[in-house]
């Protein structure tokens, strides 16, 4: 049974449609990430689930209750905010106890629960402090504690790591993952950071301009994107997109001088049709396959690997991974890729399979 089901939810602010017929099913105990660029509606959707934003149409069901018209306090969800949103005049212990106090729990039980959560998150020494006396990472830990303490049906995370520096972000990301594995509660997590999405999610929902572009496991989105937007949004560096023309009765594409075999595609393409060929940087470091000559511009050395930025004879810019050598500015190198790993998209950006 789905723990959360969002059915055909729409919302607009004046003339701006922020959510357009969005449906998402979240399985009990799973970790679902809503991913998309800023302004795609992911936070609005999360706030709608929390009951903080009313929706124009659609239904939201948590567990077996239709909560569409329930206020936030009756939905039995907990939320962690990007800005932490800790109560400034309460100590850490009072912050964590607040949801219990609002539900009228007695003092002793409340104290025990707060102590338990503090132990789990290793924030026991901080309990008597005020939020302003904590670092960013500690504040977010306290905010997570405040969400955990009530043991709600659903955890919502609204870009919880965006205000932290890179090192802390990685650390807390791992901690959230560990937390989810140990308590196995249903979590919905909003982010614009595809690395967070790929590392945390059981399922990713990619949103763009209020619509769902694709839903799937991290690997399926990476390997088998439905469209150029998802292909480009997932994976770093970004997938390269090259203009190509169909030749040989739909059996091949040409891009520049190169000829790419596409006889494995089920769809039959007409000669002369213009399509887009998508190749990931990490697939351009092969020994054999289709060759592309690249005039090197910049090489980024990351230690274990390097990324070469450059231009093809057509003028299209390409980023390619390079594991063995580090070409310099002005050199021309040959990139090779296997046609089977390239993805083909039509003029509207839809995948051709």
């Amino acid at each position, binding site marked *: 049974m789905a723990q959360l089901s969002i059915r055909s939810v729409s919302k607009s602010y004046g003339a701006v449609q922020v959510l357009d017929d969005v449906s998402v099913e979240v399985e009990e105990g799973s970790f679902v990430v809503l991913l998309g660029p800023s302004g795609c509606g992911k936070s609005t959707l999360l706030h709608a689930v*929390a009951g903080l934003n009313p929706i124009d149409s659609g239904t939201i069901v948590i567990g077996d209750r239709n909560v569409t018209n329930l206020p936030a*306090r009756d*939905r039995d969800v907990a*939320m962690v905010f990007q800005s932490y949103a800790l*109560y*400034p005049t309460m100590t850490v212990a009072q912050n964590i106890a607040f949801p219990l106090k*609002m539900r009228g729990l007695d003092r002793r039980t409340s104290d025990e629960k707060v102590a338990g959560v503090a132990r789990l998150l290793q924030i026991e020494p901080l309990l008597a402090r005020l939020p*302003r006396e904590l670092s*960013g990472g500690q504040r977010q830990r306290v905010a997570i504690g405040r969400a955990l303490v009530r043991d709600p049906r659903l955890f919502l995370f609204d870009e919880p790591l965006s205000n932290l520096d890179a090192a802390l972000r990685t650390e807390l990301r791992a901690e959230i993952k560990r937390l989810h594995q140990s308590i196995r509660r249903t979590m919905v997590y909003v982010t614009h950071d595809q690395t967070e999405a790929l590392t945390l999610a059981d399922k990713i929902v990619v949103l763009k301009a209020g619509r769902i572009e694709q839903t799937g496991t991290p690997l399926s989105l990476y390997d088998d994107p439905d469209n150029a937007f998802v292909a480009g949004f997932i994976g770093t560096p970004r997938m390269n997109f090259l203009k190509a023309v169909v030749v040989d009765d739909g059996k091949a594409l040409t891009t520049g001088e190169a000829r790419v075999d596409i006889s494995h595609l089920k769809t039959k393409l007409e000669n002369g049709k213009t399509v887009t060929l998508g190749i990931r940087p990490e697939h351009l470091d092969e020994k054999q396959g289709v060759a592309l000559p690249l005039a090197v511009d910049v090489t980024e050395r990351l230690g274990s690997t390097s990324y070469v930025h450059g231009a093809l004879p057509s003028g299209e810019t390409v980023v390619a991974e390079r594991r063995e050598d580090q070409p310099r500015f002005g050199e021309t190198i040959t990139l090779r890729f296997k046609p089977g790993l390239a993805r083909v998209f039509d003029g509207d950006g839809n995948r051709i399979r």
Partner: protein
Amino acid sequence: MGRRTLFYLGLVLLLLAVLFPLYWVIVTSFKTTRDAFAIPPVWLFSPTLDNYRTVFANRGFLSAFANSFIVSILSSALAVAVGSVAAYGLAQQPAELRRAREKFILSLRIAPALLFVIPMYYLATRIGALNKHWLLIAAYAFVNVPFAISLLITFFDDIPKELRDAARVDGAREFSIFWHVYLPAARGGIIATLILCVLFTWNEFFVALVLTGRDTQTLPVSITSFLTFQGIQWGALTAAATLIMLPMIVLGILVQGQVVRGMTLGSVKG
């Protein structure tokens, strides 16, 4: 160089204009009548407390002091209580709704007191409330509420909206959010508003002149009793003025320090 000198010269003139009357009032209150009007003025004199004795012997002044105290504290507390609930509500409303309501509140603030004081006087005489403290308390609370609302809104606006969202998810009802989250976070602003209301009420003359009876006279009205037909008792008048100013100067200094002491610091990013 020249501009700097000019700046300081201007500053000195301004300070003289502002502080000299204060100096004159306080100094005169410690002078005998003869010293007070000596020409040329006496700069060094042996201070006397006679004027203060006169003031403290005046029953009317003492009861006016008590009236002013009760009326200004109670009416300000009432205004802040009502104003803070209203300001909280307004601060949560969408911008367009809020703007219309703020305009209305602003119009109440700039409306001349005359507008309601005269009808209120008429009503008060009809129901025999003219000599009652509650009439004054109600009148001042009414005058102070719009002021308190517009000031408190700015303090509530400084509190991040996410705190309300967080509290709603945490199970709080609207009043709990106001009481447990917003009120403590805006404590500095609440105190500042309260003090400003007290200052205003303490000094107010016109409403007090119309709406007070014999038993409810406040200080600004009662001080005029030192302007008698026999002449002005300058010594007693300035001593009374000094006593009236004193608590307000202390409050004024307090309010400076209390305004927004970064109560929200640390709750959101930083």
